[in-house]
């Protein structure tokens, strides 16, 4: 019953789309059926899995590298007020620059290929993750830090036993939002810097013979995988050790 309304919404949308395409004189976009057949065709050619894996591979590495840098850096800056004040203007200046603006530089440094794309995902993820972590550290209850120190924890133990668990709920929200950004960026990066992946599929399908059914198939796949990534991150929010950080259920 929980799925009834959402499914109805999707079916109505597909119907609306179908009718619109069928009744319009020119070709606006392919019909939903053509798009689905496009996906089937990709699967038959073996491109479906290959492209999805390629895109996910880039996102995974870029995003993980960003997490690995951003969380320690964010904890450090969150605790070290003077460092944060010194570095904050730079972070604020970098923030409004779209990761896509870095494409020429990524290609200059890494050439056309996976590494450039991974680097762009990294850039797109590292800043929001760092800022989220800094914020989360600032929001730690003073009494929790004081209690940790009272029990004689060393700085390392304090980070592991108090700071990390205390920031986790907020960090997971930031991670979820950032995965969304990373997924947007990978598609764009693949349109320019590489020759595989879902972003590449879309430009390639258009360039090689105006296969708009494949363009829309690619769009549907991008949307569906984005939703799955979001659900995966949401699952983290239900871990027993972080549920305290969200509104009571």
């Amino acid at each position, binding site marked *: 019953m929980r799925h009834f309304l959402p499914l109805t919404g999707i079916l109505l949308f597909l119907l609306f789309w179908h009718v619109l395409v069928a009744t319009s004189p020119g070709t606006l976009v392919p019909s939903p059926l053509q798009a689905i057949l496009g996906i089937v065709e990709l699967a038959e050619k073996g491109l479906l899995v290959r492209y999805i894996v390629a895109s996910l591979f880039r996102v995974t590495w870029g995003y993980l590298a960003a997490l690995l840098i951003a969380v320690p850096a964010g904890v450090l800056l969150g605790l070290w007020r003077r460092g944060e004040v010194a570095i904050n203007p730079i972070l604020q200046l970098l923030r409004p620059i779209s990761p896509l603006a870095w494409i020429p530089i990524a290609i200059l440094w890494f050439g056309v290929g996976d590494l450039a794309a991974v680097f762009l995902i990294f850039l797109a993820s590292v800043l929001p993750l760092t800022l989220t972590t800094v914020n989360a550290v600032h929001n730690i*209850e003073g*009494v*929790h830090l*004081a*209690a940790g*120190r*009272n*029990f*004689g*924890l060393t700085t390392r*133990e304090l980070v592991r*036993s*108090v700071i990390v*668990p*205390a920031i*986790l709920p907020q960090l997971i929200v930031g991670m979820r939002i950032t995965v969304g950004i990373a997924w947007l960026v990978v598609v764009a990066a693949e349109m320019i810097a590489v020759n595989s992946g879902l972003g590449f599929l879309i430009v390639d399908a258009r360039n090689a013979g105006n296969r708009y059914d494949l363009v829309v198939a690619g769009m549907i796949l991008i949307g569906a995988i984005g939703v799955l990534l979001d659900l995966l991150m949401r699952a983290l929010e239900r871990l*027993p*050790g*972080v*549920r*305290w*950080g969200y509104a*009571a259920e």
Partner: protein
Amino acid sequence: MKVVFSGISKTFGGNRVLDDVHLSVREGEFVCLLGPSGCGKSTLLNIVGGFLQPSEGEVTIDGERVTGPDPRRIFVFQERGVFPWLTVEENIGFGLFRQSDAEKRERIAHYVQLVGLKGFEEAYPRELSGGMKQRLEVARALAVNPDVLYLDEPFGALDSITRLQMRRELLRIWQAEKKTILFVTHDIEESVQLADRVVVLSARPGRIRRVLDVAIPHPRDLSDPRYIALRDEIFGEIGLAHQV
């Protein structure tokens, strides 16, 4: 003497909040620091706890100068101090990271029992009531076997019935575990119900106005004339008529 405050003063940006406080606390004694809001009693507790440095004077415990927090003396905050990401058991075991697993298990079981949280070992703080969270924090403090406990208005956020029960619990635990307790409160009745001695502080800058011995054995009868006389004396000392 267990804890000795010698000439403690504290100034925050030109504001003097504590002025020349001298006080000695005996081993195993239960002392209440009583005063109006903003009189610096929490500041005093934070100084003895090692979280703040005094501007003048020094605190010694067992003859040793206090320079920072120390696991031999644990500070109990209002129930906000429990770690929300840990279960009851994990909270109580938090300070036991240097003990063996067997010893840790044994102590956790003992203090779960002592503070009446049996059956809630696996629960998270958000599933507990305010009084239970407060008992949990006391258990976490006791588990590391400190010789002094600092309590900063620990029952302030509880409803009045729970507060009474918690006082009885705390006295029972104090008698069972023989700790020295420094307890900050602005509640006159609470101080006379609990303490061996009540230290009355003046409004800012906080100075010691009076130290009263409460020579009434526990359990204290709240209609005992000695109780009422002491209570009224403190009301008078603070400049309040005992009327509503």
